[in-house]
């Protein structure tokens, strides 16, 4: 009887220990979609975070047309191009759940440049149609990193839209700013000419020759113009997390009419930033963090300063509202 009571107490204790663990839901990794960025992390301890990504092929808008839109079949993470912006803290462990639905026509995986280990995760996340792969990866080093699908052929998976950014904040966080934005440059290679109205299709040969039809910000021509333009106010400090998914071109990122007060080149946010930069080079598969204060209202144009690319879509707008500053900028005659 005594033994039974002891056994019961032990079982109850195990159950008490196990229940919270089973019931406790792992926190979700904060994510957002371009041009939004998740709020800065407030935690002062590392955590294990779950990141759910689902791969899918989605027919979507590549460019608005005067009579019909240009559409494209994008290969995506979570149905969007670019994929989500993921924000974690150095020391966090990311538990990635990568689901590839049954109706998928190919396998997918993920290579996060933030991850240390073979393939950056690709080697342990290859999901066949109908599979979900789960992997745990510790975020050892702070920085802004690109992630992308690396299933063979990796070229096609990147060229068709499977990429995004992950920010690993240093433990002390980043300096406070007023606004943060997520901008990602990439190319699309199509058989039909730019602006073709209807469903345009992937041209592997053009991709191989590195001759893009479209060079775009945030997954589509006009991704940062009209009602999709970035917004800010005079006096605000703005930070852009800028990534370049390629697959081929190096970006010369520039904001017309602004000077970057700080540039964390290559996404190396624990390095000393460069000061007063006009244009920053961002390699394919790389990123940069730029910060600038806004002193004069008006429209500022984001470009890849390899300037002909603006006609292929590598152009966006930052609309700044506020009081004029004639002591800084004014017409005389």
């Amino acid at each position, binding site marked *: 009887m005594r033994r039974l009571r002891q056994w019961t107490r032990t079982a109850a204790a195990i159950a008490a220990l196990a229940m919270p663990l089973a019931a406790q839901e792992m926190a979700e990794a904060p994510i957002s979609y371009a041009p939004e960025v998740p709020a800065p992390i407030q935690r002062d301890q590392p955590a294990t975070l779950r990141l759910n990504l689902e791969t899918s092929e989605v027919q979507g808008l590549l460019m608005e047309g*005067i009579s019909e839109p240009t559409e494209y079949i994008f290969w995506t993470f979570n149905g969007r191009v670019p994929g989500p912006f993921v924000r974690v803290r150095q020391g966090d462990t990311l538990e990635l759940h990568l689901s590839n639905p049954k109706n998928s026509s190919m396998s997918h995986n993920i290579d996060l440049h933030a991850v240390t280990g073979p393939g950056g995760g690709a080697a342990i996340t290859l999901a066949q149609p109908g599979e979900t792969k789960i992997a745990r990866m510790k975020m050892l080093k702070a920085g802004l990193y690109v992630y992308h699908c690396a299933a063979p052929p990796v070229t096609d998976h990147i060229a068709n839209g499977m990429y995004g950014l992950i920010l690993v904040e240093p433990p002390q966080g980043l300096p406070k700013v007023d606004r943060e934005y997520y901008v990602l440059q990439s190319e699309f290679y199509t058989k039909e000419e730019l602006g073709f109205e209807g469903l345009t299709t992937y041209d592997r040969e053009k991709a191989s020759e590195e001759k893009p039809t479209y060079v775009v910000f945030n997954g589509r021509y006009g991704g940062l113009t009209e009602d999709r333009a970035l917004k800010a106010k005079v006096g605000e400090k703005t930070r852009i997390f800028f990534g370049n998914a390629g697959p081929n071109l190096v970006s010369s990122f520039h904001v*017309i009419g602004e000077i970057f007060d700080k540039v964390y080149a290559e996404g190396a946010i624990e390095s000393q930033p460069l000061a007063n930069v006009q244009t920053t080079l961002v390699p394919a598969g790389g990123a940069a963090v730029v910060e600038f204060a806004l002193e004069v209202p008006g429209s500022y*144009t984001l470009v890849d300063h390899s300037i002909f690319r603006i006609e292929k879509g590598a152009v966006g707008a930052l609309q700044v509202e506020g009081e004029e500053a004639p002591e800084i900028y004014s017409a005389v005659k």
Partner: protein
Amino acid sequence: MAGFLFCCPALEASVELSSTTTSALYPADLGPVEIDVSGYPPEHQNTYREVFLKVFGFLRTTSRVINSPMVEFDPRLEEAERRLRPETLSDPRILVATRDGWKKKVEEIRRRPPCCGACPVLSLQEAKALWKFLVYDSLARKTGPHAETWSRHRMRLIELFRGRYPERFNELYAVPNKIKEEEK
């Protein structure tokens, strides 16, 4: 076609060097820089004032567009025009018939991105309106009952151009079809 009957700008009285043109590259540059749109439907009048003048007035003189030989036809309309006035459509100096010439032009302008924050940028809605306006306006002034007036206007511009810019004239018209590509 009936909708085009009420507009007949006085083009023939306006063959003067455009005030904004210092040197002309095409005969069209020598023509008027404005048109009378008072007989046009209100949406086209509005597009003319708010979009057409803003865009073309900023980029260059509006005369090249106003006096361009280009028209955008649907096949049915073109066939009717050819049947009624075969002579105007057979001369590319007078009319260049296209399926989507204005649409391509507007797309081209829309793709010209802003560089300074001051130059006009076409929104999608403005681009659509501008395209519709250009199609309507060119059909209204250049075809149907106004085809003959238009033809005389174009020939006067060309003669004027020949007198003022003989070298450029030869460059343009030495190869008969060259105007098709350039003067749009």
